[in-house]
């Protein structure tokens, strides 16, 4: 009855109204993607096909306003893959890509080793403690990421707090060199990305039905066996999600390696920064970014598919 009423008043077929609404709802996320992802990416791609030039902005050719279709055609004919070819010629770039992927993989392993016990502890904590623990995991996000990484310089430095405590306690007689090494980079990454590992694992562990563990014990498992045979396999979706959430941003990370890493720490994010701001070679930097994105598309697609599979399994 309500439908008939609405039909009379608005004079628009409710079916069409429904379709319009659906189109509107779908258009919001797609518009978002178009505006904030596709268009910027197209601009980066365009710059990567251009040549460096002494101009502002520092590349050529550029599309002149009012030049019409001919101007667009002119532009297209002057594009080339020179920058991408250059990336393959200088070993610095593929070494940086490989090194970034390697550092990201190692970081994922460390983050998992630190994050899983934290998530497990949170999930096993009593109900009144869980919000507090959750808060403690999220709390670091409330201060600037940059400031927190700077703070690690104060901790890890030769005269830093860590060395002072170790010297004072007599465990070491000479200060450890940690800052400006890969170790410092790993510490910084594990620290920064820990919540991305902890939260998805916690989400799966928290859902875990305690009856399953009791059933496993009832059927002859020790506590440890029950953990390996039940808890670990059932928390796998959270572990996979956490690993992707850490791996993907760490590959392109540049703040941590530039602040905590040394001259030997080679990461593609740092290379990109140098090309962009030190060399002011925007086209080459853009090419580095495009390749980085292409490398990351593989894990991103895998991650999406895994998420989708898990959602289907839950239904």
């Amino acid at each position, binding site marked *: 009855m309500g439908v008939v009423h609405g039909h009379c008043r608005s004079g628009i077929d409710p079916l069409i109204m429904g379709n319009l609404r659906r189109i509107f709802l779908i258009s919001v996320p797609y518009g978002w993607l178009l505006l904030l992802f596709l268009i910027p990416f197209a601009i980066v791609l365009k710059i990567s096909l251009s040549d460096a030039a002494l101009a502002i902005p520092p590349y050529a050719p550029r599309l002149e306003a009012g030049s019409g279709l001919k101007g667009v055609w002119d532009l297209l004919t002057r594009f080339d893959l020179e920058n991408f070819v250059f990336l393959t010629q200088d070993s610095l770039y593929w070494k940086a890509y490989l090194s970034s992927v390697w550092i990201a993989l190692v970081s994922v392993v460390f983050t998992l080793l630190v994050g899983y016990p934290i998530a497990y502890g949170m999930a096993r904590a009593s109900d009144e403690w869980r919000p507090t623990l959750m808060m403690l995991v999220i709390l670091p996000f409330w201060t600037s990421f940059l400031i927190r990484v700077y703070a690690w310089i104060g901790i890890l430095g030769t005269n830093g707090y860590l060395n002072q405590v170790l010297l004072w306690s007599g465990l070491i007689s000479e200060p450890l060199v940690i800052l400006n090494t890969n170790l410092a980079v790993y510490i910084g990454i594990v620290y920064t990305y820990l919540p991305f590992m902890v939260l998805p694992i916690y989400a799966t562990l928290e859902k875990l039905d305690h*009856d399953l563990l*009791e*059933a*496993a*014990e009832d*059927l*002859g*498992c*020790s506590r440890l066996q029950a953990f390996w045979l039940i808890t670990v396999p*059932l928390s796998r979706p959270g572990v996979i999600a956490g690993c992707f959430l850490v791996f993907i941003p760490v590959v392109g990370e540049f703040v941590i390696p530039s602040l905590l890493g040394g001259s030997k720490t080679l990461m593609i994010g740092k290379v990109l920064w140098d090309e962009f701001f030190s060399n002011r070679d925007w086209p080459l930097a853009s090419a580095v970014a495009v390749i980085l994105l292409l490398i990351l598309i593989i894990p991103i697609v895998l991650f999406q598919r895994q998420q989708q599979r898990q959602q289907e399994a839950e239904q």
Partner: protein
Amino acid sequence: MDAQKAEVFAPWEDSDSKPIIHFQNVTKRFGDFTAIDDLTLDIYEKEFFALLGPSGCGKTTLMRMLAGFETPTEGQITLDGRDIAMVPPNKRPVNMMFQSYALFPHLSVADNVAFGLKRSDMPREEIPARVDEMLGLVQLRKFANRKPHQISGGQRQRVALARSLAKAPKLLLLDEPLGALDRKLREETQFELMDIQEKLGTTFVIVTHDQEEAMTVASRVAVMDNGKIEQVDTPERIYEFPGSRYVADFIGDVNLIEGAIRSVKKTEVEISWAEGLPNLRAAAPDGIEKGQNCCFAIRPEKVSISAEKPEDAANAIEGKVLDIGYLGNMSTYHVELSNGQIIKAQVANQRRLARRAFTWEDRVWVSFTATAGLVLTR
């Protein structure tokens, strides 16, 4: 069938038989809360024993102590004469079927059933045959390779049963095993459970809040309330001879009439219960005394209802039809007496509805014999 079985199988009446499980003055406290209060109970081999009670009565705690997930605060639990307080759950010859079934979602049906066997000392090569045997028992061979989320609720229930029986435990605990099934499936499954129990001869202990389920499947029922056992008896005796108001009221439908003993004859007592209404005549229980407060309990199906005062009934009281509850196979008449007490009388619907003898506001007589009800003093 049940009555026959009870005649053959009644180890609790035989003073020579040893119980498989013995609770001796067991108390369990959680902080200030006493879940089990000084409880003593025997369960015999091959019994199908039901723990029945409302939620929070302690029946689940009792079961979890048998499984090993809780330890008694005081007292002792013995299994086959051995104290099991310090034996962890994975070392007990006891298996449990969980209310949630607790099937492992990442394992196939067959792997779920094999789970316990793989942790036992059964040789690896014998496991598949045992799994197949168990799946045959619950008629799930076809579904061996499915995951739990790919089968129906009733099938999951059977997997849970097969898994908990696979290790051939001395004692199987069933925690509300049929609670999640719809009524029809539940009734079918009750009989299947009984068949399986009889076939295997395993001792079953079932926890349930559904009195019909307990009455159907169990050889004996323990009615629990507030951490204590109110009564342990066969289903027939629990229903026909409840020991207290609580048990009478909890099991089935009952009319409870409060009164006091007016006179005691050899086999009969008279109970005064309402001014201006005749005393009730009832069979005398042992050791009853004049003047004692008591409660007369009578089941609705033992109350007759008629338009005229019946000549030969020991008790007949006039009233008016207040409500009729139509249940299909029978109707429950709520008859209001002159003192406001409502008596429920249940009558089988032998005639079609249109030709029913009484309707609302009719004056009727409710009547019952002296032996139809029970005088309760607790």
